[in-house]
């Protein structure tokens, strides 16, 4: 018998469980099972809808803000350019 066989025999040899193994297993089996919390599907779907709605709402808000800024910028600029143009045309006449 070479060393490998000896090692294998030792590793695969039958080993008796500890004395209180069966009792411990039974005790564990009798313990109440901790409930695993699972999100209801409707709640997950509602969360997705709310998040998507919030995203769209925020996009709309940003768009409206940008639009207001653009309109304000053009309002200021056009009034000034209009005034300058009128002054230039007035002198040319």
């Amino acid at each position: 018998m070479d060393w490998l066989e000896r090692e294998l025999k030792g590793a695969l040899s039958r080993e008796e469980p500890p004395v209180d193994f069966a009792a411990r297993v039974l005790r564990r089996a009798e313990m109440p099972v901790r409930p695993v919390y699972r999100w209801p599907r409707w709640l997950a779907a509602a969360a997705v809808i709310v998040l998507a709605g919030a995203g769209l709402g925020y996009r709309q808000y940003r768009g409206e803000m940008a639009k207001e800024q653009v309109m304000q910028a053009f309002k200021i600029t056009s009034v000034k350019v209009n005034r300058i143009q009128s002054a230039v045309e007035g002198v040319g006449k």
Partner: protein
Amino acid sequence: MTRLCGTCFSLSKWAKLACLVLCFAAVASAQQFQFNLDRLAAKASDTVEVSLDGSTLQFAAKFLDSKDPDQDKVKKLIAGLTGIYVRSFEFQKTGEWTAVDLEGIRNQLKTPDWSKIVGVKSNEGETDEIYLRKENGKLTGVAVIAAEPKELTVVNIVGPIDLDSLAELGGHFHIPKMDTPKKDTGKQIKGAASSRPRLIY
């Protein structure tokens, strides 16, 4: 191993180069000159600051209603723009801003890319100037300086824009268009042609 490290270095170098190109592109598409007017904001009774880059302008364009005449005009005007920057200050009393405040801006507009097409100065202390920026014969920007004793406005529009259409908007927005100027304005035109000047380029 050396080859691998060489590749890593090369990738890093390319990443840095890409970052530099992106930064340059971001800067290039931004304002064409610096306003440096922040100090006036503290003195002003009313301040308007608008800084919109190209992507924000195009995003805002989606929210402009084509059925509204004003919004439809603005939508058409911003189609090719890559930025619009406005600083407007209103003051309670005169003398809150000085010519020095505008010198910094004027110096930036003295480069060959910019040309002053209109300069209006009145006896009432109003100074209005319009500059155009052209690159390879194409209009790439407009600068407007409108200074009154109690008001100062500086605008930089980046990209091609039709000034006549822009001026026409002044007659919209529920603001009467000034077609008939006052007779004794005492205005002096600087840089205006001897024939009837128009803001057409």
